């Protein structure tokens, strides 16, 4: 990680307003010219309940959370202890607590962190309509170097509708926090950020996924709500009609995937988003899209499984179902973005590939990536060449062959309304015209063709993000949201003189053996990093690729993220 960063957490019970204060802080940091990365954790309650907002702010774009937090502010400590494992602290950390809210829980103090008292409630009480979360905000701003002028602007814009009095109350409470923190122990203070922020976005991974879908040309979406994918659909619901598309809420995931198959059969690029339980329901129809060669994209924002698991928390354990869940030999696309920003690119690419190759594409994001908000450089518009191929005019008396056994394996696809090209799309095995067939030769030919169109396609350099030293002897292999901490670990290792490279695989399936071999040329040892209990990615690599002799795996289940320090430790202690 180049540049300076500061990591902080604000926590409190329901009504403490930590999410509001965290969002204001992120907005102010963005306007101050800093980059930001924010995640949230909340209790199981539907509304309210304890919450923690975790922010990392810095002078360069941020890939992941740090190993531990510099600052923990507890507006109160009710049930906040249950987030302890997600809030690593150390002796260098500072804990700010309200003495009126009782002792700081032992799970936090045993880190050896320095503690300091800030009577947030009492200070807020002195101000008409003053709130403790704004006092906390003020103290944090003072410590990290956020100036008041920026905060005033944010409060004015955010509280505009609540009126001048509300703005004045918030500002007074903020100032009380700033004053109180004047003699607090230091945490990293960030230098002034870049003044011009016009080329920056504040965006969540789920919003980026939605935007990628629209840039890819998706104009029909069927939706069934599920945590943590719902925001993809809720962002698309008002956005789609504006660009000439429609979104429909379906009765279940069986319906949502079949609706998009119908929409796409009609010629409109179509997508749905779900999480593990929904993907499990969709697998039969994913096979239909493969067999009938109907392009569709399914976003799986992964959460902790199996079954209902932990619906609000992240895990990278749907790789197996995404790759292997379909019955029969059903080659399809599986892709995974490697960052919040990459949710946009990878989704757009997935739409492009599904349309070009007339098959199903599964995009694996996860809760950590999907619900994280990043202040990042604006994502440049990318345009891909090529789209769904339409048939050319037929000579008199020639029958259209929907599933023509072409050299590339891609058969020009007619859509309803085109006269002379009427055919029946079928999940039954069929011959070239689409007529159902149980003949071995037709099955063989269609299997070959459906595989060939995927394996023969040139995916270019997008198959993986490869960074680090070209002559590295050590490589970190990872995917999805684990690529964030891996990027930071890579920077730290290289700064310490290690020759390391990082391969973050974006195209999970179909595999790219030649490109993979070239990427690992000269590499003697490989560390595989992922967030799954059984090491699904490691096993997948073992099954599909030639790996160097020395391979180690760093994997653990969700919801705890992989920390950059753990990766650095694995590599440095490996000798």
């Amino acid at each position, binding site marked *: 990680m180049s540049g300076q960063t500061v990591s902080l957490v604000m926590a409190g019970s329901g009504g403490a307003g930590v999410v509001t204060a965290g969002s204001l802080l992120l907005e102010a940091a963005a306007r101050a010219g800093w980059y930001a990365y924010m995640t949230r954790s909340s209790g199981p309650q539907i509304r309210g309940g304890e919450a923690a907002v975790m922010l990392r702010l810095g002078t360069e774009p941020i890939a992941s959370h740090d190993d531990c937090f510099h600052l923990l502010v507890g507006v109160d400590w009710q049930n906040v202890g249950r987030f302890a494992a997600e809030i690593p602290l150390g002796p260098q950390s500072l804990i700010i607590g309200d003495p009126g809210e009782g002792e700081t829980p032992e799970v936090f103090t045993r880190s050896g962190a320095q503690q300091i008292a800030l009577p947030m409630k009492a200070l807020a009480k002195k101000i008409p309509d003053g709130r403790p979360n704004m006092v906390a905000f003020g103290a944090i701003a003072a410590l990290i170097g956020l100036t008041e002028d920026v905060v005033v602007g944010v409060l004015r814009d955010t509280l505009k509708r609540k009126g001048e009095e509300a703005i004045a109350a918030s500002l007074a409470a903020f100032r009380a926090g700033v004053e109180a923190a004047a003699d607090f122990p230091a945490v990293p203070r960030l230098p002034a950020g870049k003044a011009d922020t016009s080329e920056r976005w504040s965006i969540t991974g789920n919003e980026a996924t939605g935007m990628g879908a629209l840039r890819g040309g998706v104009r029909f979406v069927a939706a069934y709500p599920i945590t943590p994918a719902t925001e993809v659909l809720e962002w698309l619901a008002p956005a789609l009609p504006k660009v*000439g598309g429609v979104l429909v809420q379906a009765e279940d995931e069986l319906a949502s995937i079949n609706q998009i198959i*119908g929409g*796409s059969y*009609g010629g409109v690029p179509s997508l749905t988003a779900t999480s593990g339980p929904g993907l499990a329901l969709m697998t039969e129809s994913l096979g239909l899209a493969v067999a009938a060669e109907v392009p569709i994209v399914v976003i799986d924002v992964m959460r902790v499984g199996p079954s209902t698991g932990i619906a609000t928390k992240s895990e990278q354990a749907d790789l197996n179902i995404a790759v292997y869940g379909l019955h029969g030999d059903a080659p399809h696309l599986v892709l995974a973005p490697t960052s919040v920003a990459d949710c946009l690119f990878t989704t757009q690419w997935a739409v492009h590939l599904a349309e070009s190759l007339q098959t199903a594409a599964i995009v694996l994001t996860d809760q950590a990536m999907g619900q994280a908000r990043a202040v990042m450089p604006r994502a440049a518009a990318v345009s891909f060449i090529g789209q769904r191929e339409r048939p050319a005019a037929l000579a008199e008396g020639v029958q259209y062959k929907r599933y023509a056994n072409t050299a590339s394996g891609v058969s020009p696809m007619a859509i309803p*309304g085109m006269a002379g090209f009427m055919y029946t*799309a079928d999940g039954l095995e069929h011959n070239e015209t689409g007529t159902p067939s149980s003949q071995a030769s037709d099955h063989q030919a269609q299997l070959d063709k459906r595989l060939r169109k995927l394996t023969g396609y040139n995916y270019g350099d997008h198959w993986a993000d490869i960074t680090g030293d070209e002559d590295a002897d050590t490589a970190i292999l990872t995917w999805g949201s684990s690529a964030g901490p891996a990027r930071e670990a890579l920077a730290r290792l290289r700064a310490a003189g290690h020759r390391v490279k990082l391969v973050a695989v974006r195209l999970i399936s179909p595999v790219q053996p030649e490109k993979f071999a070239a990427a690992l040329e000269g590499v003697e040892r490989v560390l595989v990093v992922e967030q799954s209990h059984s090491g699904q990615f490691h096993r997948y690599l073992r099954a599909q690729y030639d790996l160097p002799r020395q391979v180690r795996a760093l994997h653990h289940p969700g919801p705890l993220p992989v920390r950059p320090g753990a990766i650095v430790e694995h590599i440095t202690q490996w000798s």
Partner: protein
Amino acid sequence: MDACVKQREYTAKDYKSEVKPIWCPGCGDYSVLAAITRALASMQLAPENVAVVSGIGCSSRIPAYTSVYGFHGVHGRALPVATGLKIARPDLTVLVTGGDGDGFSIGGNHFLHACRRNVDLTYIVMDNQVYGMTKGQASPTTEPDWEGSKLTPDGAGIESFHPLVVALAAGANFVARCSSSDPNNVADIITQAIRHPGFSLVQVLSPCVTFRPEQQEWKHMVRTAVVDVTDDAARAARRLMTDDGFNVGKVLYKGNRPAWQPEPKGAVAVAELEADFAL
């Protein structure tokens, strides 16, 4: 020049493909296939602007036997495919074909919500009260005491499903029952169903002569219903609750709900949505 040439008139044959049905001799579905092609011809719909969507089962094989656009998907999911197609392509005429197992058992939830949603679809259910493709098991519409299946040798033991009453309760906009023994009547009812906006359900009693040979008697048991069409769903439901299932040949209910069709609201460039994310 073309403007002066009279458009060729479509006949029922123009909607039929060369593919030979897999059905048993005597199956009622032959008549329903003929009725569908006659209905399309009577409306002179261009074949390329019609789609027939189905799931799995004997009657679900119909798309390949037509010459219009067809979609033969997985078991129970014909209605969602058709819903997505019609919403994405409102210019098309979309028919859905299938049987009682596909529609009311594995696809039961979609059936309820297709009625509710009232997208402009015509759903033709060939009801033979049995799973034929899997060689004779009880379906949702099978009588509870039918002992002809090895799977439920003592009878299914549970009450049969009443699709038309359920459709009315769930909000279908057009409900009719007819018999494959009178294909002209079936064609007439399908034509009315296509013309009526919203979700139309046409139940066709279509005997399975192989696994329910007693259904060969249906042609003698059916009678033309003596009721007139109503727009009162409660009235239609009451009538249906008390009949024996053999009153056929009539449209029983025509509702007044407009079809549901979500519309795009504009055509701005995707780039304009970037404003959502600007600082």
